[in-house]
């Protein structure tokens, strides 16, 4: 079966091939080491194939790794482009339909399907800074996708009047070039996505004889080499010079049309021989040309004749070429279904220039490379503050640690095969039929609830703890039992029907003594559950009404009036009377819950008291309210069906340690089981802007909720998480607001209402903790410097 495309991963450890499968397209990821070393090839323990993906509905024409290596893009005859990302090892997986023999060593998951083209996708290419993905198709268009926010389209380049069969980016990022069957090669500007020039002369005599026309731009940006061109009725590969798009030279020699041209990613200079003059030689590039005549030629731009020509390398035409990143190896694939690897030595090619030298050449020739994208600029931005430098370095170190940790993780993860939550897969299987939950639907049909055996994970490797599977029991339950100090004291919950029962609290004293002083542990939790009701809800009809207040942001609070006069659901207006047992003060007196409960079928399911004496009320519909004594209102702190919570995605702002296991009353109320549902990859189902908004709103809610519950530990946790999210997403204004609030007035001023502490934590201490987080994003270095200077002034006072 033909293999249409091959691409080597930037780290050199694996490569991908794309081609025709059985009734579908096939993308396979292979291990590189058996190709490079014969010992590895013979070693049976080293896998050759790492992953096979049959998701494309038709032949795959192109596979390309992103420059960072995180993503793989594949485009096929099914008009789709699929973007793949590696997933952590969740459980054993086999390629279904291959009789279970082919096990996937690595797991790659499709994170995005890009639909737009109305014809076969022939080529895809990542821009040099990975912010854009370009794809070209037989529908005569080139589409530029926003690689940061799939599936957003930035531009559609229309202009070709024939099937577009090849794409290449200018290494500096200023242009993108495409070649099509309409006998033209068009160069487009990335600044405004308009046509810069269209070159037709070399292609006059061409016909659409090739499947692909893969062209290539040299790494120094000087030359663009086309695929199939004609010169005096002989097939050539035309060399186009960047200055003026001149077409004076070409590569001659192949006997049939040139299908693919690929430049070596390295720029070379002549090898320094001992004793020769020390005159620095001009740097040159290396280019490989593959053709329909089944032969391959390799050229150096400083020589007039090819370095090497290999005839009849395959049985059918060559389809794609890929160089290793170190420039010394090359993989070539062909329509005959095979792939060849060629090895070069430095003597043959020359001394490769390092990446810095290459950037220097770019800068000297073209000015700042990729001047358009600010992100790329940041990588060369001057760090003005030595503190920032320290944090940046630390972050890099952390990333390295994470990488090494993840490689260790994957090593140990493979041995976990077949074990799910302690039970082996075999046992689960045997018991499944008994355990399986089956119900009947309204029309009498059988309905089975499937058993969840693994969570999806497309997150980074370091968050491997997501693999824990909540098969049994709720985590909230396990947390309560493992905690040393019960922070919530469940008072005897009053069932909705027994509202009339009013037991006078005869034993408040007993309950008080059972309360933990801080150390005595489980005994207390057991005692607490067995103490009789210390609260007596009494049935009273009172005129006083509460307006439920939803705190969206501690700065802006909205008062939403509940509909008064809504039909009462029960004849009894339930009220609650709670006593703070510890202080023996009646906290809530005869407040009517009417407005909260009105209009829906909710009942109070549970009433709890936090360590700080804040009453929390759980309703049967999953909402939890807590009473804010200073404002005498009930605040909503948790809603199990909160769509905000489900849409929020802030995984990227979690520190690498298990920050999710933040304990405290808020966590217990909200219940950790609901969290795992959120880990699903919702990134690409919700438009990014909406996702950002919902995540922000959710995080702000959490911070406010923690504040109302007076849980300082959680307040700190959520505030840091919120700040980290802001830093990652670049919301400078809100970040500034937080810093300003935490900093307060530096110089003494009367009339300022700033309080130096919040929930028992010193605000300026919090700010100090925030600084390293801010320091990780170079964009905020001004903010960082300002805050730091202010803190220094305060400290010196």
């Amino acid at each position, binding site marked *: 079966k033909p293999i249409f495309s091959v691409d080597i991963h930037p780290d050199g450890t694996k490569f991908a091939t794309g081609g025709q499968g059985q*009734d579908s397209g096939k993308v396979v990821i292979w291990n590189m080491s058996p190709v490079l070393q014969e010992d590895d090839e013979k070693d049976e323990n080293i896998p050759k194939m790492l992953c096979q993906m049959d998701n494309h509905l038709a032949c795959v024409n192109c596979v390309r790794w992103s420059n960072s290596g995180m993503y793989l893009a594949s485009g096929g005859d099914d008009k789709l482009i699929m973007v793949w990302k590696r997933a952590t090892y969740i459980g054993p997986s086999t390629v279904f339909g291959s009789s279970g023999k082919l096990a996937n060593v690595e797991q790659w998951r499709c994170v995005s*399907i890009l639909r737009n083209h109305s014809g076969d996708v022939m080529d895809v290419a990542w821009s040099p800074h990975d912010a854009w993905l370009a794809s070209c198709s037989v529908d005569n268009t080139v589409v530029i996708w926003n690689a940061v926010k799939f599936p957003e389209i930035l531009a559609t380049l229309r202009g070709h009047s024939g099937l577009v069969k090849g794409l290449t980016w200018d290494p500096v990022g200023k242009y993108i070039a495409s070649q099509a069957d309409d006998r033209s090669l068009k160069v487009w500007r990335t600044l405004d996505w308009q046509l810069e020039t269209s070159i037709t002369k070399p292609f006059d005599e061409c016909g659409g004889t090739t499947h692909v026309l893969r062209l290539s731009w040299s790494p120094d940006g000087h030359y663009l080499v086309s695929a199939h061109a004609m010169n005096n009725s002989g097939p050539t590969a035309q060399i186009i010079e960047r200055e003026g798009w001149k077409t004076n030279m070409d590569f001659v020699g192949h006997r049939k049309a040139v299908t693919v041209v690929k430049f070596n990613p390295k720029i070379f200079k002549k090898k320094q021989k001992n004793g020769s003059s020390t005159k620095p030689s001009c740097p040159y590039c290396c280019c490989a040309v593959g053709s329909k005549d089944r032969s391959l030629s390799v050229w150096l731009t400083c020589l007039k004749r090819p370095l090497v020509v290999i005839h009849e390398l395959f049985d059918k035409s060559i389809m794609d070429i890929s160089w290793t990143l170190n420039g010394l190896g090359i993989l070539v694939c062909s329509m005959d279904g095979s792939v060849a690897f060629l090895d070069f030595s430095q003597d043959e090619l020359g001394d490769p220039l390092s990446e810095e030298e290459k950037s220097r050449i770019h800068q000297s020739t073209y000015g700042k490379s990729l001047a358009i994208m600010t992100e790329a600029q940041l990588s060369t931005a001057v760090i003005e503050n030595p503190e920032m430098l320290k944090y940046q370095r630390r972050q890099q170190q952390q990333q390295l640690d994470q990488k090494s940790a993840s490689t260790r993780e994957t090593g140990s993860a493979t041995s976990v095969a077949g074990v799910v939550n302690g039970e082996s897969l075999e046992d*689960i299987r045997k018991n*499944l039929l008994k355990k399986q939950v089956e119900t009947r639907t309204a029309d009498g*049909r059988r*309905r089975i609830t499937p058993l969840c*055996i693994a969570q999806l994970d497309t997150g980074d490797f370091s968050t491997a703890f997501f693999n824990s599977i909540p098969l049994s029991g709720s985590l909230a339950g396990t947390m309560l039992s493992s905690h040393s100090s019960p922070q919530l004291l469940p008072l005897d919950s009053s069932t909705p029907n027994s509202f009339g029962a009013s037991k006078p609290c005869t034993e408040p004293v007993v309950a008080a003594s059972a309360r933990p002083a801080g150390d005595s542990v489980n005994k207390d939790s057991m005692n607490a559950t067995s103490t009789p009701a210390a609260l007596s809800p009494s049935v009273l009809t009172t005129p006083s009404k509460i307006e439920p207040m939803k705190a969206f942001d501690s700065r802006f609070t909205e008062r939403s009036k509940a509909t008064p006069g809504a039909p009462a659901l029960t004849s009894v207006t339930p009220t609650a009377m709670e006593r703070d047992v510890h202080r023996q003060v009646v906290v809530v007196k005869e407040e009517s819950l009417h407005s909260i409960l009105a209009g829906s079928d909710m009942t109070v399911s549970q009433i709890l008291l936090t360590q700080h004496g804040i009453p929390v009320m759980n309703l049967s519909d999953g909402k939890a309210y807590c009473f804010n004594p200073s404002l005498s209102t009930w605040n909503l702190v948790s809603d199990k069906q909160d769509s905000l919570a489900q849409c929020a995605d802030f995984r990227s702002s979690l520190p690498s340690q298990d920050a999710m296991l933040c304990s405290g009353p808020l966590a217990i109320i909200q219940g950790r089981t609901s969290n795992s549902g959120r880990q699903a990859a919702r990134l690409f*189902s919700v438009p990014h802007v909406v996702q950002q908004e919902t995540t922000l709103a959710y995080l702000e809610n959490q911070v406010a909720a923690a504040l109302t519950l007076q849980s300082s530990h959680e307040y700190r946790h959520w505030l840091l998480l919120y700040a980290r999210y802001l830093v990652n997403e670049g919301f400078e204004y809100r970040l500034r607001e937080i810093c300003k609030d935490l900093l307060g007035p530096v110089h003494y001023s009367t009339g300022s209402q700033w309080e130096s502490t919040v929930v028992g934590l010193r605000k300026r201490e919090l700010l100090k903790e925030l600084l390293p987080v801010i320091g990780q994003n170079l964009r905020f270095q001004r903010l960082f410097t300002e805050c730091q200077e202010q803190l220094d002034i305060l400290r010196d006072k």
Partner: protein
Amino acid sequence: MAKVSVLNVAVLENPSPFHSPFRFEISFECSEALADDLEWKIIYVGSAESEEFDQILDSVLVGPVPAGRHMFVFQADAPNPSLIPETDAVGVTVVLITCTYHGQEFIRVGYYVNNEYLNPELRENPPMKPDFSQVGSLYLGGVQPCKLGVKVSS
């Protein structure tokens, strides 16, 4: 747009007598939580000649489906022998497992089933009318899962 893919279908109790219920253990993966249930059907192909001999052994709704990998056991009764044409009763036939969402079929997995007499004598001289009490079914894998173009969309 969610993506649902079938990871594995295991046949429990293979081989088994003809009349014993079919039991498949199906594992599948879903990239997002689905709003509705998936509908799985087991179809016994009575005869390769025409579809009128297809028997839908059972159809089951599976849900609710959160994101992640899931497993369930699909049990269905054995096919009704009277509906199977005599000539095709003993021999190799096909059992199909299909899954549909919102009425659109998006995956179909097939298994070859070999029905043959357990008693070697009967194998040599098969009676005119098939005696199903003597027949055992043996499943062979081999038919590729066929993924149809419908992606599970909300």
